[in-house]
């Protein structure tokens, strides 16, 4: 099945390449053949990488696993990698990165992500509440260096919390699928047993593979488990005293990762710890912030800006010459990618804080420190 799917997509990509190169391209100019073909089948012929949600599985009250069939152009991920998911909410495209939770060895050619609704997280909440079978989404190729070495006999340690389990789940599923489970310890934190994603499957894996030890820790409820409460060195010593000799992988909230970083550094084994950090796509909203340091990412220049001076003028004062037109917000000729931080639209006071968003620099000013692609 997997082979036939791959062969299928290889054939269809050959066909569309042929279409593009031949006479078709000049006949559809200024569009490309995909612009027409995607009206027939967006998954196969679309301009960008697309996916279709095949299944929505409920993991916990606020977490869902989405099984996604990727379209043409997808290449199998490596366990631990993440993918960027683009969906339209109220007509606006939003993209967020999610770790893939399935094993690359999955037989049906699909992959899955597991999303936990985050308070105030527009995309995660939308995916958990609204995702339905048949929904089309935009994808980026799988990427990331948070992966197991291809050949290694080192014992492993995984420390995760909340939805941080997802990349590790992909690794464990992959090890299981290849029957290559090594000596591994997983310490996973969730508020209560009901919040623990993949609890049953993790226990089953531990039963199947004696070399895998799984500790599911509840931070809020105190059960009969050996461990409870938030992560501490004591936990580590208690269930995995040889932690310094293991290759460690960690994924979870910032605070947890910072703690782990400190502990591993102090022990002088920082190189044995790999962490997966997701940079928040949204800058923290700071409605009151006015002005700040402006970093121009491409030129590497820095400037101080007040809250009233449009970024176009700030850039020009810093010796840059950004493309622009009307200088009054009507021609859209000055749009620049917001890398991080917030900008304020001086006409409406509206704050833009989505990293990757294109903003009109002739009418937007810094609202706090900001980085733009210039």
């Amino acid at each position, binding site marked *: 099945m997997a082979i036939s799917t791959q062969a299928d997509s290889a054939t269809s990509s050959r066909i569309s390449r042929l279409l593009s190169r031949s*006479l078709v391209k*000049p*006949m*559809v*100019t*200024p*569009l490309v053949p995909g*612009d*027409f073909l995607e*009206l027939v089948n967006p998954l196969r012929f679309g*301009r*960008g990488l697309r996916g279709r949600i095949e299944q929505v599985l409920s993991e916990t009250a606020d977490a869902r696993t989405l099984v996604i069939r990727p379209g043409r152009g997808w290449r199998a991920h490596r366990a631990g990698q993440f993918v960027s998911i683009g969906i*339209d909410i*109220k*007509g*606006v*495209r*939003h993209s967020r990165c999610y770790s893939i939770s399935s094993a690359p060895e999955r037989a049906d050619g699909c992959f899955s992500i597991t999303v936990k609704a985050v308070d105030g997280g527009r995309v995660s909440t939308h995916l958990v509440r609204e995702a339905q079978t048949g929904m089309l989404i935009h994808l980026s190729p799988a990427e990331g260096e948070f992966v197991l070495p291809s050949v290694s006999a080192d014992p492993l340690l995984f420390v995760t919390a909340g939805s941080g389990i997802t990349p590790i789940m992909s690794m464990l599923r992959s090890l299981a699928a290849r029957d290559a489970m090594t000596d591994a310890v997983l310490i996973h934190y969730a508020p209560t047993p009901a919040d623990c994603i993949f609890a049953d499957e993790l226990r089953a894996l531990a039963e199947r593979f004696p070399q895998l030890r799984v500790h599911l820790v509840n931070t809020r409820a105190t059960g009969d488990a050996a461990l409870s409460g938030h992560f501490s060195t004591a936990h580590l010593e208690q269930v995995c005293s040889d932690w310094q000799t293991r290759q460690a992988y960690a994924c979870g909230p910032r605070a947890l990762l910072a703690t782990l970083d400190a502990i591993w550094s102090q022990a002088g084994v920082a190189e044995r710890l790999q962490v997966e950090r997701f940079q928040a796509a949204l800058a923290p909203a700071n409605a009151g912030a006015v002005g700040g340091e402006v970093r121009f990412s491409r030129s590497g220049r820095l400037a101080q800006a007040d809250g009233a001076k449009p970024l176009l003028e700030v850039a020009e004062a810093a010796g840059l010459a950004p493309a622009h*037109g*009307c200088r*009054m*917000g*009507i*021609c*859209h*000729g000055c*749009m620049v990618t917001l890398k991080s931080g917030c900008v304020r639209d001086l*006409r*409406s006071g509206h704050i833009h804080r989505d990293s990757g*968003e*294109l903003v009109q620099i002739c009418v937007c000013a810094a609202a706090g420190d900001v980085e733009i692609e210039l």
Partner: protein
Amino acid sequence: MSRSQARSTLPKALRKPARASRKPSTAATLRTRLSDADAKAFGEALDAIREQTLASLGEADAAYIRRMIRIQRGLDVGGRALIYAGIFAPPAWIAGVLALGSAKILENMEIGHNVMHGQWDWMRDPAIHSSTWEWDNTCPADQWKNTHNVEHHTWTNVLGKDRDVGYGILRMSDKQAWHPYYLLNPIANALLAVFFQWGVALHDSEMDQLRTTGTLKPESRAKLKGMWRKARKQVLKDYVLFPALAGPFFLPVLAGNIVANLIRNLWSYMIIFCGHFPDGAETFTEAEIANETRGRWYLRQLLGSCDIEGGKLMHVMSGNLSFQIEHHLFPDLPSNRYAEIAPKVRALCQQYGLPYNSGSLTKQFGSVMKTVFRLALPDRMPRLATLG
């Protein structure tokens, strides 16, 4: 006309505003129509309409533009197929030409023009974005965005700044001084209508400088090259490849494509000329707009633009440029919203005692035609006759 002649007798008014503006006029001017306080309040009311509309954009709007794109692509493919079918059944040729012409009109007006304005940038879909869209027209997107979004929309109807006033070849305002060349006004106008996409394509290269300086500046040469890089693909598609695919029936397919392009040219010319040239639309001088506030910028957009009244189909086929006033006030608001904005703008105009120029296509286009013919001849008023 020889080059030296061209230099000495060029119609200066094309580039420089006439001096008439320096004379105090009895008519209401940009300054006297609204007090500073009223201009400010007027601007704020329009800003509020803009914010209100922006805040209410959502799924239905996104579905609208995507549906338009689907319809347009369907008409394009269907139209071309019908033109081929016309080889065997001539009525299909007519249907095909109409469908292809409509596809080009929709693509250029309701989709291309509006997407390139950034009306759909809020969706953050890279495939429907002002920075990436290229339209089915001989004019390259980047040049269009310069002459249209920047020059025309920022400097609307300002003589010497907005080159859309007469497109460098016509006399469309009596503030442009008369010159014998303008006796050709009706002929130049007809040629522009027939070859409108080429007029648009050549616009950014400022070909009229050939008449004034006898040569092209380097930027214009570069733009001309860029235009031809785009235009030759369009020519190859419509006038070589699709006809060639019909083999021995090259000519009927070629004719079909020529007529489809002609339909688009005539229609878009007509709609666009009804936007700023009917009776009552005002032109301005640079002096008049010195230190223009946001409120007065809005006022100028209003006074320089005219709406066309009509049914839903007319609005869609005009790219909602039938709401030219609303489009000029809010060039980057999605076109499907102009219809609901129009009554609010009209009410605001009533409140401030401002004209709101609106009429049927026949009325507006009729008055444009009158202007084309009237301004071909010199003005009878001696005051203007001494100018230029």
